[in-house]
């Protein structure tokens, strides 16, 4: 394992991210489909606002994958076929109550803190990664940087023009009640990082 990959994995796991090595995007799609199908159904938070689309969560599990290319989306859809997973790519505002998982591709990784860097200019992507119970992100080993300073050029490029960029380090958490760590404050309860060897 390369040093950066090793360091990234170690640091990401320290902040309770789940890191898995994969060899191809197909593996990533299969991982997501299988994981969501096996996952216990998402705990609905609110019946959203009354006039919003009321999500039907009875047997289906929702996997959102905005901003994939058409080919990628088709491949993911194929992986979800025949499972209880319903794949969507938009309309996230109708699902403010929560979905099972959001599937994204990260733009970079910061090894010293085990963070993924993700340009999230699109609203669908941002919401998908926030209201999902699990965020599954694919990260190429070739886009790992030692730390944020080393990634400066990438970051400045991502922030060119109107932009919204995130460093995401582990699942959402809080320690505001008696300083006791609680996972999943407002965002995902789990962060899965699929490290793609490329």
């Amino acid at each position, binding site marked *: 394992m390369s040093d950066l990959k090793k360091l990234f994995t170690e640091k990401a796991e320290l902040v309770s991210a789940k890191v898995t090595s994969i060899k191809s995007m197909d593996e990533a799609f299969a991982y997501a489909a299988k994981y969501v199908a096996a996952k216990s159904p998402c705990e609905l938070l609110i019946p959203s606002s009354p006039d919003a689309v009321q999500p039907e969560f009875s047997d289906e599990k929702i996997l959102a994958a905005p901003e994939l290319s058409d080919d990628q989306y088709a491949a993911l859809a194929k992986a979800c076929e025949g499972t209880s997973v319903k794949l969507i790519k938009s309309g996230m505002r109708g699902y*403010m109550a929560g979905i099972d998982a959001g599937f994204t591709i990260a733009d970079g990784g910061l090894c010293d803190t085990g963070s993924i860097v993700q340009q999230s200019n699109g609203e669908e992507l941002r919401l998908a990664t926030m209201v999902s119970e699990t965020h599954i992100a694919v990260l190429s080993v070739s886009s790992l940087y030692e730390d944020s300073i080393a990634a400066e050029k990438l*970051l*400045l490029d991502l922030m*060119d023009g109107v932009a919204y960029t995130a460093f995401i380090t582990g699942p959402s*958490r809080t320690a505001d*009640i008696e300083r006791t760590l609680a996972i999943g404050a407002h965002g995902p309860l789990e962060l899965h990082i699929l490290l793609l060897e490329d």
Partner: protein
Amino acid sequence: MHNANNLKEYREDMQEALDNEFLRKSMDAFAVGYRINRAKAFADINEPVLIKQIADCKDYAVKNNAALLKQFTEEAEKRGVHVHLAKDAEEANALIAKIAKDNNVKKIIKSKSMTSEETLLNHYLEDEKYEVVETDLGEWIIQMRHEGPSHMVMPAIHLSRYQVQDLFSARTGRELEPDPEKLTKVARQELRRDFADADMGISGANFCVAENGHIGIATNEGNARLTTTAPRIHVAIAGIDKLVPKLTDALTALKVLPRNATGQTLTSYVTWIGGANECAIAEDQKKEMHIVFLDNGRSKIAEDEMFSQIFRCVRCGACANVCPVYRLVGGHKMGHIYIGAIGLILTYFFHGEEKAKNLVHNCINCGACKSICAGGIDLPGLIKELRARINQDSGMPIETTLLGKVLKNRKLFHSLLRFGKWAQTPMKKGPYLRHLPLMFMKDQGFRSFPTIADKPFRDRFSEIKPMVHNPKHRVALFSGCVQDFVYPEQMEAAVKVMARHNVAIDYPMEQSCCGLPVQMMGEKQVTIDVAKQNVDAFEGTNCDYIVTLCASCASHLKESYVELLEGDRDYKEKVKRFSAKIIDFSSYVHDVLGVTTDDFNKSDEKVAYHSSCHLCRELKVIEQPRNLIDMAGEYAPSAEEDVCCGFGGTFTVKFPELSSTLLDKKLTNIEATKAKRLVADCPGCLLHLRGGSNVRENGMKVTHIAELLAENLK
């Protein structure tokens, strides 16, 4: 929020905090846990280098603030953002209310922002009939309780899970369990609808990056990301001090900020927003984004040579995390809106002298905050200076003026001390006073007071002065008032140890009190006058070193004198020579004389050590005393050795309740080592520790480290 009108009311407030057992326990656990986590987080980080980088960048940003604001504004406007500058809190609040009105807003969600706390934005918006919901869990909790934050990073740190349980049960109408994880889920659920329904989101900003018009926000919960995504309008409010030139500046500060705040390497989310992003529910599919920069006196402070360093603050809250006073009373008493060491200072500038005048006295000057600050701010130095400014504005309290007058006149001061010896006779009980003169009596019973010695050190010196031919160095002694008049035997012990090593020793008679006590009271002119007297007293001695047995004197003589006399042409050079020669006793015998185990008969006595604040943090003398102890006896380490004993000179008189609580903790830790001997390097600490041990009747022998060495000399 701090609202006491005078020191007396403020003391009552603090008593209330001291009586809150949950708070005390919880803060203790936090303080101990924090140290461990922080140390781990910094393990592979070059802390001083990073802190210096942050300080330099922030200093640059303060000096070039107007240009950075201009650059930021251009970049942000290019990206469709409306940028505003508000001169004060009222203007900022009005601006934000107007944005809400113009956009027909009803519900507002907020992601944590200290700047909006500073302007009391929520009150303003609620008065204008907007529904405002805080979405950070801690903020949401205190919003429901109608309280201010008690910590900058953990706003609800003062509350127990049971209090949160009650609060949430009342809100949801369900009987909830006191389980933080489950309670967090409740907040997740309750707040989700607010995210969905809100028209406007308000956030703070940790950084405003001029080069690309981006703001950076660090959160753990992810609420900032939702707050800035779901509603159609986003307003960020930030002090102008949040401007930095480049992204790398922000990235550098981000290496320290979370590590210093909570011991995390990075918060779960760092969100960089540059411009009016996509928003499906907006008419043109674009979010309306505003940034309100708040001045509120900042540009004026930026011109203040001494205080402009407060803008190095990254609001990590670490100065509170390590403050022993904050640990006892919590943020509602140790601050107004901003809390901890930086809070005392910011309160003065942002909320006025009236709010700050009691708070600034509640600094014990232990230096813990300075040693941990992410921006390398000299917090205790600034707090001392604030006292002086407040005193100047409001007139000195009578005791301060009196002490000032006395101290300015060395002869008068010393005659009074000599007179004290006679005056105390009817109250003596062995080496302690049986009871204290009335003016000192109040609430000081937790500790016995020593009596004034029969003969001060200055009168004994000629008898014990060693005769040395061909000395290897010449040393002049600085005794400080306590060792001169109360504990001359400590000085004698030091002379005995040094005399073995062929050192010529001198004691200039014109020396006086070092002046730290009057500086702590805010008497700046007297501090300067006394400093000059001492510099003059040693100028003629032709010595290589000036050795002092008092850590507080040493740090004051070495660090503060140069600053105090810098502006004085006649003293500028003299004081540099003087300060360069100052050395504390332990460093002198350990590093310069190079004593070894061979100099001592190592006893098997277990000896505990109290690491005095001014020695370990200000002068960074850590190993020397411990090595010396191990040469003469068995060093028995105790828990929290370098936490302040609670003396702090005038602090112990002003806040006896706090002082005695700190002393109790200290002695409890020391007693746990089972040692029956305790040494320290500072007569103030010794007075306090010895007096406390006497009242506790713990049988502890409390002495200066010089006495331990002298007793075991071969």
